[in-house]
């Protein structure tokens, strides 16, 4: 500390003020330099972001557990309130689903028979990693989440991330043990999609609201609220047929889609590597996917791609139905 009022004070005080001012200006300039650097989207920035996610992930991993138990309490209270209605709804849904299960069994059998007949080459198997959501980077400016799986588990940038209901986003930065998921609602997210019934192609563009927009929809496209939206598989980032959302509103200048996931209830996510090169321009990134050749490793489910979301990996593959019903459409009233 300089002595107050001494001759040293008179000399050093202006110098210190000048240094202070210089440091402030230097930091402001650094901010703008960072903005430019970040805009250039270099591999370096990506690595640093991955490392930052890695650094805090042990803490977030621990700290998010109590948060998850709070979640448990709120869901319990919520479900108690609507127990009766929920039960009725689920019974109804169960009846419908049993009918659909019958249809699916018949179709699976028929499909495998047809594949045998036409010597159909199975697409490469997909590789799944399940991960817990350890952070939700909410806010008005970005929509992303942090999950507890990284390159250690075979997670790489660009891979599709699914919730139980459907597509939730893609991996934006992959650290060693944790990664950041860019949600489909984020303003930087663009997903090639199609309308399920009309097969019209479009882009699902996030705009930081919870209802992303359908853009580049052709003028003669027929879209109505309630239509399901699936990935179209264009661009080679995701395979076709993954459910993404439901058209929620159609107006003159905007078609909005309600995503299938409920952000505050997402606890576990699946990162799926379909082995598609897609947005990964870097050839090295493709070579670093060893699990694609090794078939079924620990948690790899051997499902053909192109069928959308397969059953959860811990479930055994659907057994071949013992009897084959000749009507492929299936009878809705039938019970297995």
């Amino acid at each position, binding site marked *: 500390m300089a002595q107050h009022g001494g001759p040293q004070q008179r000399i050093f005080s202006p110098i210190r003020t000048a240094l202070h001012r210089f*440091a*402030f200006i230097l*930091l*402001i300039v*650094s*901010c*703008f*330099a*960072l*903005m430019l*650097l*970040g*805009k250039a989207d270099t591999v370096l*920035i990506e690595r*640093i*972001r991955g490392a*930052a*996610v890695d650094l*805090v992930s042990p*803490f*977030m991993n621990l*700290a*998010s557990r109590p*948060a*998850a138990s*709070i*979640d448990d309490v*709120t*869901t319990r209270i919520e479900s108690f309130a609507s127990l009766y209605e929920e039960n009725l709804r689920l019974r109804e849904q169960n009846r419908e689903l049993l009918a659909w299960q019958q249809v699916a069994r018949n179709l699976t059998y028929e499909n495998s028979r047809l594949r045998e007949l036409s010597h159909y080459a199975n697409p490469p198997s997909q590789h799944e990693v399940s991960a817990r*959501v*350890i*952070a*939700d*980077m*909410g*806010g*008005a*400016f*970005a*929509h*992303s*989440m*942090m999950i507890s799986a990284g390159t250690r588990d075979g997670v790489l940038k660009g891979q599709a991330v699914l919730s139980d209901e459907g597509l939730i986003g893609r991996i*934006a*930065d992959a650290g060693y043990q944790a990664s*950041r998921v*860019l949600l489909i609602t*984020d*303003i*930087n997210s663009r997903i090639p999609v199609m309308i399920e019934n009309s097969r019209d192609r479009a882009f699902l563009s996030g*705009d*930081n*609201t*919870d209802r992303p927009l359908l853009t580049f929809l052709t003028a003669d496209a027929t879209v109505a609220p309630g239509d399901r939206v699936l990935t179209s598989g264009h661009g080679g980032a995701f395979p076709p047929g993954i459910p993404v959302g439901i058209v929620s509103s159609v107006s003159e200048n905007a078609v909005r889609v309600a995503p299938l996931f*409920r*952000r*505050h*209830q*997402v*606890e576990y996510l699946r990162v799926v590597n379909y082995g598609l090169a897609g947005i990964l321009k870097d050839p090295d990134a493709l070579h670093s996917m060893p699990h694609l050749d090794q078939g079924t490793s620990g948690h790899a489910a051997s499902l053909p791609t192109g069928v959308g979301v397969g059953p959860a990996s811990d479930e055994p593959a659907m057994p071949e139905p013992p009897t084959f019903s000749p009507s492929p459409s299936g009878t809705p009233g039938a019970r297995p």
Partner: protein
Amino acid sequence: MKPGVWQRLDVIARSTVPAFSVFVLLLIGLLPYSIPKLADVTPALTLMAVFYWSVNRPDLLTGLAAFMLGLIQDLLTGLPLGVSSLVFLLVQSVSANQGRFFHNKAFTVMWWGFTIVSLPAFLLQWLFSSALTGALLPFQPLVISYLITAGMFPLVAWILVRIQNGLLRNL
């Protein structure tokens, strides 16, 4: 009397408390809460702490610390780099210069001060984020987020007052 090694280490550890508290608030803000709609309008906990420490202990939360904390926030949340750094740096500099005004005044004065300082901070963040993403970001969550942030300030400030009185009284 010269302070011993442990004493000096203790002083150093205590002097990092303000910056560390901002970091902890950042992580708390990132936790996945399962409250519907909260994710869109999370309060800016870090901004409150940066303001609080800049007013009360500008010597412990310097411009450099504000810059680094902003950088960490941008890296972790996936925001465009440099925006939070700039906002924190400006908030730190303004609050530190005007800090004396709040001393020995009622808490409501500081609360008002925060609502006044955080308004341009939010707008600046919105402006730069929009410019760097190349599209106008929705304004409504920003307004709600600002209101929640302003409303929650006393709670966070109360905790920070406890920390300041408990750990930094003799520093």
